[in-house]
């Protein structure tokens, strides 16, 4: 139930799975180009199309492995790739947050490791992953990560002094960051709780002080700190608010990449490579 060796070399996947991933990446990048060249409608259409192709890729993987494909980093990043457009649309329509161009890039960027780095070798589910909590735990985290990635883009826009998009009912970047963090924070909380519950069922400990658990807790605490800081000071220290969110994203990247891939952090989640 422990480590599988990670093939860390870049490789092109000459398979249907690989083709679908590369197609999604290409469409996302086309969407980004179209959007920055002023073709907003074309950009949105291509963004939706890219997400649809990524969803097809995810569905193909599901059919191929015969279980929900969220077992390893390849599958998790495949899932992240298809969430870009739905979350972008939700943020635009419901939260009134801009930054669509960034969302198109997020879609392409998260698919790059799936397309070129992580092994797509299908693996049977080990006994520990045969739990009904497996899917909601990982899915909820995947959703939260895309939300927080978008929040980071907004935070960076705020730090760069970028004004809100004109012509649409879009909020300024600082408020946009706050709204997105508020949308994603419950998912981050649920991910932590579901993982703890699963740990109790599988290994007898609702908290095993595993490096992954500790980094997940650290991520949650950074956003918790952001919410408390913003409650105390509001928008008076907008740059510090944004830095909180960027720091949160850094802990998420560590949780997602470094913990799984580095030999520095051996633990129960090592199978997720």
């Amino acid at each position: 139930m422990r480590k599988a060796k990670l093939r860390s070399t870049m490789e092109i996947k000459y398979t249907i799975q690989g083709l679908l991933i590369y197609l999604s990446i290409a469409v996302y990048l086309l969407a980004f180009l179209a959007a920055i060249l002023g073709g907003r409608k074309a950009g949105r259409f291509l963004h939706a199309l890219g997400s649809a192709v990524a969803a097809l890729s995810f569905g193909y993987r599901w059919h191929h492995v015969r279980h929900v494909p969220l077992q390893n980093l390849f599958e998790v990043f495949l899932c992240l790739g298809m969430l870009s457009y739905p979350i972008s649309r939700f943020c635009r329509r419901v939260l009134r947050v801009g930054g669509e161009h960034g969302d198109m890039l997020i879609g392409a960027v998260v698919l790059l490791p799936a397309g070129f780095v992580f092994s797509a070798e299908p693996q049977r589910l080990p006994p520990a992953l045969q739990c009904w909590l497996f899917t909601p735990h990982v899915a909820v985290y995947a959703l939260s990560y895309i939300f927080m990635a978008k929040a980071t883009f907004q935070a960076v826009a705020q730090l760069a002094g970028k004004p809100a998009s004109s012509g649409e009912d879009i909020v300024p970047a600082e408020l946009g960051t706050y709204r997105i963090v508020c949308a994603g924070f419950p998912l981050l909380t649920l991910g932590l709780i579901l993982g703890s519950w699963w740990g109790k069922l599988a290994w007898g400990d609702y908290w095993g002080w595993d490096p992954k658990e500790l980094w997940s807790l650290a991520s949650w605490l950074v956003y918790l700190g952001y919410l408390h800081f913003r409650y105390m000071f509001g928008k008076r220290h907008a740059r510090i608010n944004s830095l909180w969110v960027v720091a949160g994203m850094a802990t998420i990247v560590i949780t997602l990449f470094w913990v799984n891939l580095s030999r520095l952090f051996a633990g129960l989640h090592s199978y997720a490579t």
Partner: protein
Amino acid sequence: MGKLRRAVMWTALLLIILLAVLSAYGAFLGAERAERFFNSIPLTLYWLVLTALLVAGMVLFRRLTRVPGLLLVHLGCILVLAGGIWGSEAVCGLRERLFGISRIRKGQMAIFEGTSERRVMLPEGDQSAELPFQVALKDFRMEYYKPAHLLIQTREGQSWRIPAEIGKEFILDEQLGSVEIIRSFENFKIKEEDGKNVYYDDPLPGYNPALEVQIDPPDDEVRTRFVFELFPGHAHPEDEFSLLYLRVISDYVSELQIIQDNKVVAEKDIEVNHPLYYGGYHFYQHSYDNRAGEYTVLMVVSSTGLNLVYAGYLMLSIGVLWHFWLRHLLGAIELRRAKGQTAQHNGD
């Protein structure tokens, strides 16, 4: 904001930052050392201060008690911390010293098939304790995904992964020929009969999975090879490739019974993710005899504090969902309804 409330707020922020930093530090220690670190005296004080601060915050900030979502979130955190502290090693030891309540917090027990056991090995060296009842193991088994596979690898780096299906011939290529799986064994043994080696599957307890493989090269005689799951990487010098027997475990199952006063009071087939709960303890499938499959190793964990933690999780979950999502959603629905009614009223 009053001075006291400002101080509480700042302290809360600092404690959150401190815990985030300590969590990152703890990640570098590894699970065992991190557990000792977070249960050390300074960190125990931290947990108590954090819990007290949460309580103080709820007293000083009326908003935390008036706003349902915030009430649930903060109360949930208090319950989680309280449950963790109540079930901690330090408090368990304190209960034993002050009130004589002796309880096994965590340990392991190895039970052979057909026997029962009440002794639990504790994490601290070679100490053990006894449960107030017996745990019996009727049977332990491992289940595998089907089919198993035979991995064939040449020195040049070519590889094939074929299903280990009996009687099916698999053609590799023109130079290497074909392979066929003749038989599979769960407990491979050799005996001599009439001066010849006879290969058989021993029904007695034991565990030596193997495949009998026939290799048919294009320009040579048919050869028979035995591939052992427990002894991978074995290859004959005359062979062009090595063989590997791959089986993936799908489940570990221990058929357990709880015996008290000579009566079976509970029984369950436990697997990973499906423990047995009895007498305030959870029994988890932890490990097994990987040589002969004759005994199982259970993790025994006390449920002290668990209900508090779970209650805290539930409140925290409902609290965040309500405060960040549902109240806004309901507010938006209410607003739309009001707009609709106003438009209707104006139309009338």
